[in-house]
């Protein structure tokens, strides 16, 4: 019986001790509180427990207040450079790469290369015209397109040349497929007579003309027989170039010497037109390409550097966080 009494007292003590914390704070309901107080009246151990708990709480409550040595207010975060710059830089790099690719493509297409460029619309082969265009790139001389003909090249063939700009400097270029090299033809003025066409090759008059495929440039309605020519190849080239280029609808005529201004062949230049360009004018393209390569290198390395910096900063932030 004594043991049973002791056990029940032990249980009561244990129950009381579990509730003492709430009792100290006055957080028990009235019945619980009454039960605890009843036990406390009879149990010295639990009473001392209560006192020690109260002392503990009092000790905690009377701890000195601690003061931070600084403020924890947040400073506005300055947006880090790469957050704003990097996307723009990436975009600029991509744009520069695309521009460079476009410049390469244009270069590759040869759109700005010099020399004779056949106009595919007026391809002489397609028109059944014997094409004789030849030129060394960058030179100003060139050869007019013509047709195969049956002129007796041994005899003094006379071709009249009339240049619409009204100057006396007229010329014609002749191409020969008979031998190597280009044969030039120039009108030679004959005092009191009809100008003659003289063909030269490598600066020498060609005795045998071979198959002459060079012709006068005339406007069909504008033949003036007493014009004469020059053999200045530079002038010749530029004049013919001008005619070919600008005289849309002009005719390319061949007039044999044996006849009096009889038209042997006549072609509408509008159909057979070719474009001749001066020397390569793609220096700017080259400069653009070099510039773009430099720009891509610069932007690319700047992007890479910023990207690395951002990665490092993030890693540092992650470490810190």
């Amino acid at each position, binding site marked *: 019986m004594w043991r049973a009494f002791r056990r029940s007292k032990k249980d009561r003590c244990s129950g009381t001790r579990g509730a003492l914390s709430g009792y100290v704070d006055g957080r028990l309901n009235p019945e619980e509180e009454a039960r605890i107080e009843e036990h406390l009246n009879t149990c010295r151990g639990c009473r001392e427990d209560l006192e020690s*708990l109260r002392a503990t709480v009092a000790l905690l409550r009377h701890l000195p207040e601690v*003061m*931070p040595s600084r403020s*924890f207010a947040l400073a506005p975060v300055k947006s880090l450079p790469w957050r704003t710059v990097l996307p723009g830089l990436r975009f600029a790099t991509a744009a520069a790469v695309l521009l460079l690719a476009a410049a390469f493509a244009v270069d590759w297409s040869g759109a700005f290369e010099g020399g004779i460029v056949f106009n595919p619309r007026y391809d002489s082969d397609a028109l059944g015209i014997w094409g004789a265009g030849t030129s060394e790139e960058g030179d100003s001389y060139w050869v007019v397109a013509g047709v195969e003909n049956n002129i007796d090249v041994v005899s003094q063939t006379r071709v009249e040349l009339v240049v619409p700009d009204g100057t006396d400097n007229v010329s014609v270029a002749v191409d020969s497929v008979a031998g190597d090299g280009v044969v030039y033809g120039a009108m030679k003025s004959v005092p009191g007579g009809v100008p003659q066409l003289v063909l030269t090759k490598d600066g020498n008059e060609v005795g045998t003309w071979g198959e002459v495929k060079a012709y006068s440039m005339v406007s069909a309605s504008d033949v003036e027989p007493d014009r004469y020519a020059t053999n200045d190849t530079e002038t010749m080239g530029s004049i013919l170039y001008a005619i070919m280029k600008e005289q849309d609808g002009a005719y390319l005529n061949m007039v044999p010497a044996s006849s009096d201004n009889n038209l042997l062949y006549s072609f509408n230049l509008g159909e057979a037109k070719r474009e001749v360009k001066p020397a390569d004018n793609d220096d700017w393209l080259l400069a653009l390409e070099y510039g773009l390569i430099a720009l891509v290198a610069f932007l690319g390395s700047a992007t890479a550097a910023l990207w690395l910096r951002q990665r490092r900063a993030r890693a540092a932030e992650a470490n810190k966080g």
Partner: protein
Amino acid sequence: MDDIELIRASQNGDLDSFNELVRRYQKMAYGVAFRMLGDTQAAEDATQEAFFSAWRNIRRFRGGSFKAWVLQITANACRDQLRRLKRRPVVSLESLPYDPPSMSTESPEDYAVRKEMAEHVQTGLTTLSHEQRVAVVLCDIQGLSYEEVAEAMGCSLGTVKSRLNRGRTHLRDYFVKMELISIELRHNK
């Protein structure tokens, strides 16, 4: 402006309003952090981290006690800080965590006793589990109600009671052992 207005403005991105809230609660948050960690530097770091976190998550605050919300974030920041310290322990050279309040009536001897006692209490706190320590710090040191503690700890009132009970009992035993509370209590316990 009251807290609610400041919170609303903060949620709309107004840092000045948020900083006003920081000024209102930083002493309390720092106090909790210091009692949790027992080190001024760690407490400052945890407090700063807590306010950073609060600013980042201010939109998630959906009413209730802002104080409890801030303290919950602070307690979490303290736990993170403890983990970090465990990974990379630093030796703190500061042993005087608080400036002696200018008590003209207090003698140097009294001050020394009080300081020693406070240090023992602080050491006792670090022997508690994280949950018990949070409950004791919030309730007994910061003076929060059971309800506020439950909100800050995200648990029920019953859990608060039992954590508090176990924490206090554990501390009481420690204080008795350290002779911070009277010796005869130890004998009669």
